[in-house]
């Protein structure tokens, strides 16, 4: 089954075309490599797929649904925000009406006017700013919640937190992220926290970095950070994992360890899309490889096909 489809993706930055009509797909249960020389648009593609950039044109579909659609707040969620803003401004309206000393009907009218105005202001603001990038910045989390998770090229471990905490941050649907649960249903929260901790420890064991459990993430070596990042993304229980240069700057021993883990995970049914410069690695692990050059897909094929393709060598060494 096709997990991810990318169609005619295009993105420019201030006159420079980074991705120029790339199309490809990722099948479930496979490892897909994404390679290409510097400036070929791999990282941009990556950011587009994970929702961190918005494409100028083109579509990214995850399990058949447009990711832009996935990332848009649901109708319910918007309704909650609009109504809460409405209630807030409604209170202001109520206060205004009561201050002006009118009778009960006036109060009600004031509340209604306030609520409508509030909802209107909030909705209008959403509408006005719907096109600007920074409102979208908060949205990619929905992709992660839908099972499409990513890592970062330069690892984004939370340096002040311990390794264990970094992992414990990731799981979805933690009760304790809800304040009322934290305060009033403490036993359940603690119970879940204990199970999350167990899960995190298992993950550390799986990655063979359990000796670093209490270490601050900022003190880890580059390779250990990569492992941590992988572990953290796995903790979100994803289906498709986008890895941005998982072995860059990692020493050979750790690289081997990472690769072993990736293979195990693939056997468990996870799917991967990997951007990587280390050819040896990518050739070893990928089922399919997509080669990008100048913002477009140059070819897609098995590692053997890619390695023997004249165009690929050309692309790497330049025309």
């Amino acid at each position, binding site marked *: 089954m096709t997990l991810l489809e990318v169609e005619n993706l295009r993105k420019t930055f201030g006159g420079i075309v980074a991705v120029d009509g790339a199309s490809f797909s990722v099948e479930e249960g496979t490892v897909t490599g994404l390679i290409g020389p510097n400036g070929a648009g791999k990282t941009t593609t990556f950011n587009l797929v994970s929702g961190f950039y918005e494409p100028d044109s083109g579509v990214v579909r995850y399990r058949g649904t447009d990711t832009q659609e996935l990332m848009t707040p649901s109708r319910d969620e918007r309704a909650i*925000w609009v109504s809460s803003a409405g209630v807030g401004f409604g209170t202001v309206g109520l206060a205004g009406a009561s201050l002006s000393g009118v009778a009960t009907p006036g109060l009600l009218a004031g509340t209604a006017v306030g609520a409508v105005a509030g909802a209107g202001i909030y909705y209008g603001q959403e509408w006005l700013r719907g096109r600007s990038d920074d409102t979208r910045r*908060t949205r990619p989390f929905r992709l992660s919640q839908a099972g499409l998770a990513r890592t970062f090229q330069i690892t984004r471990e939370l340096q002040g937190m311990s390794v264990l905490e970094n992992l414990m941050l990731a799981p979805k649907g933690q009760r304790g992220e809800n304040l009322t649960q934290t305060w009033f249903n403490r036993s359940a929260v603690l119970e879940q926290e204990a199970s999350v901790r167990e899960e995190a420890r298992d993950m550390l064991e799986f990655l063979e970095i359990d000796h670093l459990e209490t270490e601050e993430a900022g003190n880890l070596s580059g390779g250990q950070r990569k492992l941590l990042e992988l572990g953290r993304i796995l903790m979100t229980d994803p289906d498709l994992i986008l890895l941005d240069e998982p072995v860059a700057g990692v020493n050979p021993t750790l690289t081997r360890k990472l690769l072993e883990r990736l293979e195990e995970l693939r056997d468990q049914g996870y799917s991967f899309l990997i951007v990587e410069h280390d050819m040896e690695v990518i050739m070893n692990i990928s089922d399919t490889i997509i080669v990008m050059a100048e913002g477009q897909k140059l070819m897609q094929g098995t590692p053997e096909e890619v390695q023997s393709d004249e165009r690929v060598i050309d692309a790497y060494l330049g025309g």
Partner: protein
Amino acid sequence: MAISGTLVSLGTFVAIYALLSLGLNIKFGYGGLLDIGHVTFYLLGAYVTALLVAPPAADQQFADYVLGLDLAWIVAVPIAVVVAAVAGMLIALPAIRLREDYLAITVLGFSVIAKRVIQTQGWLANGPGSLRNYPAPLRGAFPLPGGGESITLVGLGVPPEALFGVVVLILWAVGTYVLGEFGRIDSMDSIGDRVFHAVFAVTTLGVGYLAARRLASGTERVGALTVGSGLVAGVVAAGLSLTGSVSVGVLLTLGLFSVFTWLLAARIVFDHYDGMPARDAVAALGLAVAFVGAFLPLILLGGEGGNEQSRIGLIVTVVLLLVFVYGLVYLSNHWEGYGSGSAFISVVGVGALWLFVIRYFLLALVTPFKQGGASEALGQLFQNLTWLIQFSGGDPAFNYARFVFTTAIAVVGAAYYLMEITVASPFGRVLKAIRDDEDAATALGKNTFVFKIQSMMLGSALAGLAGALWALSVGALVHTMFAPRITFIVFLMVIIGGTANNRGVLLGSVIYWGFQKGTEDIAGFFPPEARSSVQALRIAFIGALLIVILYYRPEGIWGEQTTASSEVES
């Protein structure tokens, strides 16, 4: 007023500002939201509470304001807190997505506007004048016991004596519990521990003896036991105060409880500075003595006189102070030879504690001694030790200020506990993650926007609570109490103690008010015409202090708290 009274009113300030800074810490320390308009929510909490509990404006002379619903405080305070939280959300909704500097200017704008609206709109909250003459909760029953009228609580008439019993009960139960909690860490090896446990046994009227033995063995859960013993003790104490001699009851119960607090404070201090080299402790004492010494010329020559002699005293003191400051700076620069920077901070901290001891227990006796000799001085000392008791006309009593103080402390304790479990929870974890790297949190599927809004609401609610407490405790509100500089002071408190460290934030408010009180004392020595300048310089000094801290020790005194989830388990 005995100095213990000053301590009580100061403690109320500390508690209210501690609440404010806990709120800011949730926003800024944990959530990374640069809310430099925090005072807005403080103002909202205060005015909403006051307007709700106030009688209708028509009943008042020369005052005009809206609402005046005559509500019970127990209803008004939650409403005020909710209003502050909702206001926090409304302000945050549009602003929180913007760059942090935009957010800052927006919230600062709100704080300026809120103050100005209160100031100019006469109909709203009595305009530029003060909003006053609204009832203070339970005011009439104090001083306890024997304050007079009985209080209606939940429809029941409660005589003041019974109310006193309730107060003692609560104080005692909480007090012994805290004492027990602190006592259980050690065995009974040292003399200090023995004394501690002996006092514990006595104050729990024998019941605690059992607990103390178990504490020593260190195997049992003692929390329930200490609470239980406290409750028993409380009931006995309350009964004592109701029957028999009221005065004896007051003296016995509150006096003992006051002694508790000193013991507890000493215990905490010793625990904290355990392992400090004797040389450092002596150096700290030296610092404190040197600081006090610098003021001797002023005190001896009479700085307030305005004559030649006093002017000399003033000059000498200023010079000595400059030397002291220079010495301090010199020491801090050359401290590396003796130990780490944090060692220097502990020396200064212990020095400040010494300063407190000297001021509170020694200098406070000077004037009484001059006036009435040794007996007067001893009486003063006794009053300062049994600080919970106020002697009015020779009769010991528990007055309203002390009631407000203990309530405020209790509220802060509860809020602190709540914030601690909040930041240690997955919610707090996500908040910290967003502060450190919003993209990473997003990539892990966290709706960062919602978390930020929640932290804003939570922090604002705490500020609203602080405002409500403030309104009820001072009994009159003026717009000048809510100047934008309040936010700034709260920022200082958060940064001094250590951003994202709730304990540090409490320390910050203690330090700030200690400084405030200390400099107020100092200003008293100066000639009257220079006092306002000294006051202004004090605020300027705070600004400079903030910059210095941000440069040399941006993590604050204690740095960020490491509430690693893994530690919670064990």
